[in-house]
């Protein structure tokens, strides 16, 4: 079902935390609300679920405005960070609970529980209590409970935050698989860019109660709307260098980078350089010293202090043999650099 937030506003007391937010999630699409803690992404999610009162605007499920409809009447499924399984009930009873409160027959409940348990692959755990399950299994139960009533929208609130790294990768693809198989419209709230990029069709990057950019993951990575977006996406993160643009482009330290092109005459600007676009033999060589090396196994991450000031990160395949303290003359691939105004606007 298509979900539309139209001028959604939320206040806590006198503080407006979300002001007139617009967002459209297409039918069957999975979208990520990505942002640092306190940016309003969970608030938005809880408002969609009906757990927070809406102070303005419309929330449309299909054609129906549910902004003033109680949570019980909305038909959303939600998976919480701590799963919020009912500890005194078995897995089967947990999953059946939404059907039970709707007065479904026992046979009907049993059939639907088995069906959804099969989908999330917990068919053999139905008689266990939540305390007897591992984190990943609890996650699956929570997902099954959210999906069993065929909700209009599936809401996921940091669903992977409590899992260890290996399980997190596994559940990332599991949740996406189940979402695609059921074709349900889903919203994922996360502060983890990797989750957002790997699981979702589109990402809505949020900051201070507003959406900064909505785009597909690759598009957002390659074409960030401003300095904030560029800094948020990418791991290891992008590095920024102060630069001056007049006839030619030079770094704040004085080193020339080449013709200014479209940036001519803009004065002081900032350049964003991703680690993969800085390294040996990539454009104009710049003097620098390696100050830090992190070994990641397949590749090494270097931090380089430039002779004229400023730091850059580079990511190279393992085995380059470069040690900290080495002087290097690596260059920047100028075709892939982002330019930002001092206020952070993309140029």
């Amino acid at each position, binding site marked *: 079902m298509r979900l539309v937030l139209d001028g959604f506003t939320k206040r806590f007391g006198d503080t407006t935390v979300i002001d007139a937010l617009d967002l459209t999630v297409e039918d069957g699409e999975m979208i990520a609300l990505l942002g640092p803690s306190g940016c309003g992404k969970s608030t938005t999610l809880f408002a969609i679920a*009906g757990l927070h009162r809406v102070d303005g605007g419309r929330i449309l499920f299909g054609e129906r405005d549910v902004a003033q409809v109680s949570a019980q009447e909305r038909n959303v*499924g939600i998976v919480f960070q*701590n799963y919020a399984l*009912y500890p005194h009930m078995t897995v089967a009873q947990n999953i059946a*609970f939404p059907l039970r409160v709707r007065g479904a027959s026992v046979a009907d409940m049993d059939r639907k529980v088995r069906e959804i348990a099969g989908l999330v692959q917990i068919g053999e755990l139905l008689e266990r209590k939540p305390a007897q399950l591992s984190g990943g299994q609890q996650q699956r139960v929570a997902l099954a409970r959210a999906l069993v*009533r065929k909700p209009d929208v599936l809401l996921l609130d940091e669903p992977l935050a409590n899992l260890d790294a290996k399980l997190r990768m596994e559940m990332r693809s599991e949740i996406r698989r189940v979402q695609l198989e059921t074709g349900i419209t889903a919203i994922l709230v996360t502060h983890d860019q990797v989750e957002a990029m790997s699981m979702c069709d589109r990402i809505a990057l949020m900051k201070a109660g507003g959406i900064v950019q909505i785009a597909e993951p690759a598009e957002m990575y390659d074409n960030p709307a401003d300095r904030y977006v560029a800094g948020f996406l990418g791991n290891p993160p992008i590095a920024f260098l102060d630069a001056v643009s007049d006839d030619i482009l030079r770094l704040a330290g004085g080193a020339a980078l080449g013709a200014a092109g479209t940036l001519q005459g803009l004065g002081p600007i900032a350049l964003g350089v991703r680690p993969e676009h800085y390294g040996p033999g990539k454009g104009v060589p710049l003097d620098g010293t390696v100050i830090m090396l992190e070994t990641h196994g397949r590749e090494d991450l270097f931090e380089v202090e430039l002779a004229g000031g400023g730091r850059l990160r580079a990511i190279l395949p393992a085995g380059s043999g470069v040690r900290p303290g080495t002087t290097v003359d690596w260059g920047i691939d100028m075709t892939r650099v982002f330019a930002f105004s001092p206020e952070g606007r993309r140029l």
Partner: protein
Amino acid sequence: MQEQRAPNARHWPLIAGLVALSAPLVVMYLYQVIDTVTTTPPGSIIPDGVTLGHWRFLAGPLSEGGPSVWSLAGNTLVFATCTALVVTSVSVTAAYALSRLNMPGRGFFLGGLIVLHAFPTITLIVAVFLILQYMGLYDTLTGVILVKVAFELPFGIWIMKGFYDSVPWEIEMAGVTDGADRFTVWRLLVLPQVQPGLAALLIFSFLSGWSEFILPLVLAPANAPQVLATYLAGIIADDRFADFSLFKAVSIFYALPVLAIYMIFQKKLMNIYGGGTKG
């Protein structure tokens, strides 16, 4: 689990010290039991005969027209049970409201709870006496139960609030989005989480009612609503012919149910001091 070791020489001084310290207690408990089935000449500590005479209160009233211990035990049971049930049922709902509902006057009620909890309630006894008198509940078991419940409630609500506070909000949020109304959420999802607290409070307030002395003594002094505690006090009220062996026998009769309940439910009672559910 620590390895169990046989006591060795290093432990003996410790054990001797503990024995010396607890010997008076042991002797007291020992004589508490011995004296109820023996006769002892004045001035001696060695019993000189065996008798069941001190347990004669079980067979019938001690004096002509006096109360039977069985009806008193019945009274005490009714008193303690009613207190426990009312305290628990009011606490379990009031505590939920204070813990979770955003209602007007919440801060006032919470503050009131703490003040009443710390307040020596017995200082209210004169006012309570007047109120009961005015309502026509003076000298009735109902009146004493009401007063006892009122005095126990701050404790009960506070304890239950602690248990509710430890139930994650997300469980209720999940219940609400699953389509259940707030009452169903409370009944089916939250109440089972605080069940250990509920059981502990039930037992605790029962025991408190069972051992209550001052309230029945002051507010229901007539024969009919007497309870075991006041009966026991009555036995040694006459200081010339106080029968201490009889007193000890009645004490044991009075204390046995408490001991039994503690033994059966000690784990549940510990929950109250643990302050919440585990895992």
